[in-house]
Structure formats: C-alpha cells, structure tokens
C-alpha cells in the first residue's frame, strides 16, 4: 500500500481528508490518532455556526456566504448536519443539494453529517471535523444545523461565532423563540427579509434581546434575502467584527479554553461510557446485580466498586 492517511493528509491530499473525516465521525482509533497528530496545526480557522428552525433558508445562506468568501480569496469548509431518524437510524442529508453552486471549486469542501444519536452528543464528531478542516488549511469553517434542542447548543460549543437565523411567517409567535436560542447568538439573521412581516420580527427580536443579558455586547440583527445574496456583505462584516471583538476583549482565549476543556471532558466521558457499557455487560459482574436484587448491596456501594475497577482497568478503550 502507500503512505498512511495522516501522512497523506499532512501532504494536502483531499481524499485523505475525506477519509479521516469518516474516521473521526465513526470514532475509530485511527481518528483519534489523526487528531493527535494534526492538533498542533489547528487554531487558525474562523469557525462559524449557523442554526435556526427548518425553512429558515440556512443552506441558501451558507451558499451565499461561501460565494462571498470565495470571491474574496478565502477557502471554506462546511459541516452540514441533519437529524438521524430515531425510528430507523437513517437520515436524509439534504443540505448539500442547496450549496451546489460551488462544486467545481477546490477551495470549498462540503461534508454532510447525521446526528447519529451518539453518546456524548454530536460535539466530538463535529469538533473533530472542525479540527481536521482547520489543520488542512481552510480559512473558514461553517457548521450548519437545525436549531432544535441539543443540536443548537452543540453548534455554539464548536463555533467561534454563532449565527441564529430566524424567518418571518413560520407560524410561530415570538414567544416560542426560546430565550436560550437568543442567548447563544453572536449574530441574529432575519432571512427572507422581503416578507411583509420581516420588520416586525426584527423589532420583536430587538425587544427580546433588550430583556436578556448579553454582557458587553448586544448581538446585531442582520436582515438578509439569501436567495438574492442580499445583506451578505453586511453579514460578513459583522462576522469579522465579532472575531475582532473576541480578540480585543480577550474573550477569544476564554472561549477557546472553555471549548477545549469541554472537548477533553467529552473525550473522557466517551472513554468511560465505552468501558462502563462493557462492564455492565460483563457476565463476571452479574453477581453484583444479584446482590442488589437481594438488597445485600445498595447502588452507591456497587458504583464505588465499579469505580475501583475503573481505576485499575487498562486505560485505552475503543471500538
């Protein structure tokens, strides 16, 4: 065979990047190894998270952003996340199809990902993908996901700048836009701004922001018409301004520190969870379950016993 994937990745081979993305998503040993070897090269890309309800036009917005950045000489990677069906375990990954203007361009890489109901959330897979794109040399990494529940928090975790997209006329009253969603927003976008009720939505959002707590910075509200690339220039300016704000206010390092700490915790939890599942399924531990049933031991005691086992267990766990 030929050189290993990591070597090929470091040499700039796109195919190696694509394969390593799979490894990171599949949580393989090779994926972990690759991240270890490339981590030194990370920390340069600007990561932008884009979240919002279905129908908000996020993918179209991403498409417009990609074009803008490319026109200004920046390379762009996109992680497009869609939900895995709890029923079937499958997913239709339908964001790429709306970003098709850019297929011929090597300065663009679009990767579709399903949420997969992973233990530890989506974060490790997305975080790993971001690291890979960052190390490979992409200037901008966009993460797009549907803003429903945990996913939006995951996106905010992985991103330097989080954009929350809203649209008028989705049938939701302003009250149903969760306060939590607005809190994670560094920038608010009102897409389909040509709709008649767009202005009201902007006003409502502004009022909600005033009620909330945003520290030293109030997130700007940017109206856009993504299908016509209207408002994109201003959005890009706000993104750049946010990046600058992060650096100048010293918040950047704090955020990165927090993010990496969370990543460490997630890795650790992933390891522990794997070990725990094995332990729970190990027939050698069945007697402990019997003792619980007969009320000879209580759960706390069994847990202590479990942790003792963990401390003395061999450290590496993987699939």
């Amino acid at each position, binding site marked *: 065979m030929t050189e290993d994937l990591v070597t090929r990745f470091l040499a700039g081979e796109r195919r190696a990047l694509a394969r390593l993305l799979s490894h990171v998503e599949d949580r393989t040993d090779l994926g972990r190894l690759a991240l270890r070897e490339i981590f030194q090269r990370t920390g340069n890309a600007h990561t932008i998270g884009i979240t919002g309800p279905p129908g908000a036009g996020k993918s179209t917005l991403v498409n417009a952003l990609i074009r803008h950045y490319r026109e200004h000489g920046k390379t762009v990677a996109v992680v497009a996340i869609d939900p895995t069906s709890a029923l079937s375990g499958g997913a239709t990954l*339908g964001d790429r*199809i709306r970003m098709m203007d850019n297929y011929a361009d090597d300065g663009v890489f679009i990767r*579709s990902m399903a949420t997969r109901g992973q233990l530890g959330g989506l974060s490790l897979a997305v975080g790993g993908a971001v690291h890979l794109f960052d190390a490979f040399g992409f200037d901008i990494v966009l993460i797009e996901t549907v803003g429903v529940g945990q996913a939006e928090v995951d996106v905010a975790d992985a991103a330097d700048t989080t954009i929350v997209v809203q649209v008028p006329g989705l049938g939701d009253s302003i009250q149903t836009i969760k306060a939590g969603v607005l809190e994670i927003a560094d920038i608010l976008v009102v897409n389909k701004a040509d709709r008649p009720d767009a202005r009201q939505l902007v006003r409502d959002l502004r009022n909600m922001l005033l009620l909330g707590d945003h520290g030293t910075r109030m997130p700007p509200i940017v109206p856009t018409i993504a299908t016509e690339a209207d408002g994109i220039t201003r959005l890009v300016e706000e993104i750049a301004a946010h990046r600058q704000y992060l650096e100048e206010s010293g918040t950047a390092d704090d955020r990165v520190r927090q993010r990496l700490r969370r990543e460490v915790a997630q890795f650790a939890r992933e390891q522990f969870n794997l070990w725990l599942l094995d332990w729970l399924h190990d027939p050698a531990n069945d007697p402990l379950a019997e003792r619980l049933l007969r009320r000879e031991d209580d759960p706390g005691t069994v847990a202590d016993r479990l942790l003792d086992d963990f401390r003395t267990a061999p450290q590496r766990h993987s699939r």
Partner: protein
Amino acid sequence: MSATTRAIRVLIAKPGLDGHDRGAKVLVRALRDAGMEVIYTGLFQTPEMIAHAAADEDVDVVGISILSGAHNVLVPKIIEELRVAGLDDVLLVAGGTIPAEDARLLRESGVAAVFGPGTPLTEAVDFIRNHIPSRERDH
C-alpha cells in the same frame, strides 16, 4: 457496544438532463428507512460533480438513477470519474429504463447491479445492504 455505530453512507445521483426524479426520491426515503445516511445530489449532475461529491462525502455506495436513455454514454463516464477520484471500491448501482442488453454491458464495466423498472424497492435496498464494501484497509 460502541459509542456510535458506523452508518452506511449513500449518494443518489441524477446525471444528465433527465428530470424524472420520482424513483430516485423514493429510493432515498427507503434507504433512510433502512437505516442508511443518504445524500441526494439533485438533478442535472455531470459525471465530474457526482465523483466529486462521492469523494468528499466518502460514501460507501453511489446509486445512479437515469430514465432518459443516455445511460450508455453517461454511466461509463461516471465510472471513469470515480476511478480518477480514487473511488474504485465504492459500490456502484444503477436504476432506470435500462434494457437488459445494456444492463449486461454496464455490469461488465463495473456497475454491481442494474435495477430496471418494476424492481421491488426492497430488492434494491437489500442488495445495497448486503454488498457494502469493506472498510478495514485504512491505516
């Protein structure tokens, strides 16, 4: 048990000018219901676009849906583009209005299966599921 199970990733593509997407869309849903992760390219794809998407998304399977009669020209081109992109081991299947004789030739040139009109959906899904290429070779 593991932290996550590996999913089968499939690209369903419509090459050329053929605008009949009913079959492709139905297959996308059926594969999703069978637990796979499916990326639909949409219409009017060139062979190059298909290979590019398959490579970047690192899919296990590429399914070509073509009802325009242009399969004899387009499928060989897709096979070539996949080869150039280093995707020789991807499972390639095709479906549509492809007569038996043409299907035979396509199979000889690297298409694992050709699903003609009237193929039960379950047959296509099962074939894909049972012929996923192995992934053990990375190092």
